[in-house]
């Protein structure tokens, strides 16, 4: 084969891969949409379930805040019958509310749809993953050279984190609906506004630090996102619980949805752990970025807008962690700080790329 023919063939392969990637992304969106409807169906069936209402009644009766403690079975398997059981109770001063039964509200059909939704999410995840892979092969580099690719990778990782937690048998199916909704938004934005056929990387991006720094940044963002969803739900559930505890009567819709979510304490703990778990990694991401900047631009830290906003995000999350250890700031106030911190992350991603110019602006829009 002549070199020219080889080149042409290579170009054609790239073209084909790029087209394949686009097809896969659109297919993934279609399957996510199906998953979205399945989750909705799960919630709808759940709203009719008796168990849901029982849980509400249970909570409503306990406005003294002294609900029965929850029994935890430990040391799983058959050994349980031989062992003493551990009783847990909320820490002093905390509300003792049992977790809701989940979106299906104990309804068998609802549960079935929930499972279907998860299966569809898995399928969509695989398709999207293949789409990202095809994209990477077509541009012959890591698939995070511009915002379009970044969006694709981001949602893939976020769904991956969710499925990973599910695989670890964590009780987080409640996350499914908000997650898939935002993944659809994220992908919609990607294929319309942000779509970039292909583009080049500036020499500064040619480094193994690209893989380290950018991949951890995307991963942290995805996990922070999951934490932020938990935080928002916590805020809703917490005001619902306070209202009940004060003898109030939340609206029917709010009751139907919120009574099926985990207790506010559980949601709070969930978001704390998610945020706390990635905070060291986020710290690492910033430091890795500084080292890379030191190699590529000759200075470790130059207060470039992207660097500045990473720093702001970092300090905001440190604020959140501190707030949880500070009397008078625990709970809702800390939760607001967590949301501000995530907003900083979002701004760093979209806002800085779109509104501010700096060395990082190769992350082009459209």
């Amino acid at each position, binding site marked *: 084969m002549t070199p020219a023919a080889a080149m042409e063939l290579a170009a054609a392969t790239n073209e084909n891969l790029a087209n394949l990637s686009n097809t896969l992304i659109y297919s993934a969106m279609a399957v996510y949409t199906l998953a979205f409807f399945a989750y909705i169906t799960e919630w709808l069936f759940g709203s009719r379930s008796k168990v849901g209402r029982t849980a509400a009644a249970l909570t409503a009766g306990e406005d003294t805040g002294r609900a029965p403690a929850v029994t935890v079975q430990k040391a799983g398997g058959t050994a*349980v019958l031989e062992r003493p059981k551990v009783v847990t109770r909320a820490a002093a001063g905390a509300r003792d509310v049992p977790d809701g039964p989940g979106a299906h509200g104990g309804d068998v059909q609802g549960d079935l749809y929930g499972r279907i939704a998860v299966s569809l999410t898995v399928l969509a995840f695989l398709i999207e993953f293949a789409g990202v892979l095809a994209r990477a092969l077509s541009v012959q580099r890591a698939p995070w050279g511009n915002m379009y690719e970044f969006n694709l990778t981001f949602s893939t990782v976020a769904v991956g984190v969710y499925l990973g937690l599910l695989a670890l048998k*964590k009780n987080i199916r409640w996350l499914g609906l908000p997650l898939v909704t935002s993944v659809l938004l994220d992908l919609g934005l990607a294929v319309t506004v942000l779509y970039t056929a292909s583009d080049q990387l500036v020499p500064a991006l040619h480094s193994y630090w690209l893989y380290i720094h950018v991949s951890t940044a995307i991963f942290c963002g995805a996990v922070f996102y999951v934490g932020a969803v938990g935080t928002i739900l916590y805020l809703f559930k917490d005001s619902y619980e306070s209202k009940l505890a004060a003898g109030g009567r939340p609206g029917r819709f709010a009751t139907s949805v919120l009574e099926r979510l985990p207790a506010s304490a559980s949601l709070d703990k969930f978001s704390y752990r998610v945020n706390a778990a990635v905070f060291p990694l986020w710290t690492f991401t910033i430091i890795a970025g500084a080292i890379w900047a030191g190699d590529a631009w000759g200075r470790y830290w130059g*207060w470039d807008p992207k660097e500045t906003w990473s720093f702001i995000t970092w300090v905001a999350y440190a604020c959140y962690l501190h707030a949880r250890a500070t009397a008078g700031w625990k709970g809702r106030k800390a939760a607001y700080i967590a949301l501000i911190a995530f907003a900083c992350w979002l701004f760093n991603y979209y806002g800085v790329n779109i509104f501010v110019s700096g060395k990082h602006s190769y992350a082009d829009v459209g």
Partner: protein
Amino acid sequence: MSNTSTDRTDRTGRADASAASATAEDREDLTTAGSQLSTAPQEDAAPRDGAPNLPALGVVGWARWFWRQLTSMRVALILLFLLSLGAIPGSLIPQSGTDPTRVADFLARHTTLGPLYEKLGLFHVYSSVWFSAIYILLFVSLIGCIVPRTWQFVGQLRGRPPGAPRRLTRLPAYTTWRTGAEPEAVRGAALELLRSRRFRAHAAGDAVAAEKGYLREVGNLAFHIALIVMLIAFAWGQLFKSEGNKLVIEGDGFANTLTQYDDFKSGNLFTTDDLEPFSFVLKSFTGTYERTGPNRGTPRTYQAEVAYREGAHGAERRRTVKVNEPLEIDGSKVYLVSHGYAPVVTVRDGRGEVVHRQAVPMLPLDANVTSSGAIKVLDGYRDAKGVKEQLGFNAFFVPTFAGAGKGEMLSQFPALDFPVLALSAYHGDLGVDSGLPQSVYQLDKKNMKEFKDSEGKLLKKRLLPGETMKLPNGAGSITFEKDVKEWAGFQVTQQPGSGWALAGALGAILGLAGSLFIQRRRVWVRATTGPDGVTVVEMAGLGRSESAKVPEELGALAGQLYDLAPGAPPAGADAPPAGPGTAEAEAGAAEAEAAPGTGPETDTVPEPDSGKPTPEPPAVPAAEGAETK
């Protein structure tokens, strides 16, 4: 409150307590049990009426009050918040440190806002007084926080975990069973078990108290100390750093002295003696570029071959410098930051004598290296009449020309495929003697006159390598030689302290991991003889509010201890099989305000565990879903 507690005597044999004081005692008891689970500073209880508890004392009192405030968690939180808030304007407003032209532009466009911003230091936020004030206060607060916390922690390491609270049932995780083993034996076994699980454990009265996870505190302190190390390293680097740029054409050299730099910046405490002596010669620059595919034009190789010497007389050594791979000489780093072309031109005067021959570096304007520059002939030139004059040429250069008639002088590719040099010619006074600094890449046309072509327009021409542009009326000529050199832009930086900053950063990550992943928790095991002579074992666990694994760990420990002190037969055939640990039993116990097995007076309480397992309803996992670690 149930009245059953009025006739109860506590374990120490003290006389009856009223219900109210019993609860108060309980609370205190629990507070003690949970005390010092961290070294976070005690919060001053804010007075209810909202008035701050201001000191009435003189200067010392105020100073002490101020220090207390500064080192409190609340103020640390506010300072952190201010730090992130304060960093924002610097990302939105142009900064003179990074982009002076945009600052000038901003000042020109905003005549009212500009000076105001200037006064507030908003064009150099990160070195402004107010930003410095925030982080200096934060770090004073940090030091004021670390020192007492360290002492407190040392105290905790010297001391022992607090003894068991009277009512273990009130703790977040609790379990109990009856056993045939003697209480002393159970306590001994518990002590051994806990120690083998790396708890710090000791026997206190009828119970064993144990604690684990001290490394959390170590990690947390290490993290905060690492932050200080990083800040000091960073400040040190800022004060002593230097950064200069130099454009070097192939074949030319550079020696590290101030005068050789094209531009140079340094920290406040930097002196020129700090410049390390070294020199290098750019042997060649190699750039090859992707020819096809989606990455067409992306550099494949992009590197400078240099020969360098350390010190004045060091041996010559060869190195390749790439974008992400600087040349390191002692504390200096030489970065490859830019690249472009330098076409060689020859200027002849009216008599045909060569007055100027030079490789002229051109500054790239885009990714395909469309470049612009200026050619200045300062002296030696005489016009057709033999009068001394200066010449100037505006130059555009493209390494890959699109072809005649195909639009603008815009390069199609970064490699030297079809180089074209476009020139326009001027003569007169270049203005370099005026004393004002002047860019070598731009002509100051104030005192220059255009050379005219036959139509009376500015004389300009596109030249291929080897071609010549004649100046009108025998004023001479300029030739684009068949030689285009490449140049490389180097940045030479010295940033002392960066090693320390890196060490601090790594320490911070490790410390953080310890602080966030390790859980500090306490376990108590009480073994006493019940009213019927059978031993009652109670275990309870306590952690910080986020600690997830306390119940699970307690369960595992209880399982192991249970194997060593197995369950006794039920207390009586007709004893209610109220499984300990079920919701009902727990609620009942709480109701009765008394713990099982604490003394002979506890018989009003539902009998503690029969030891026999009761079939359990499917358990609701408490907060299990929240797990991430």
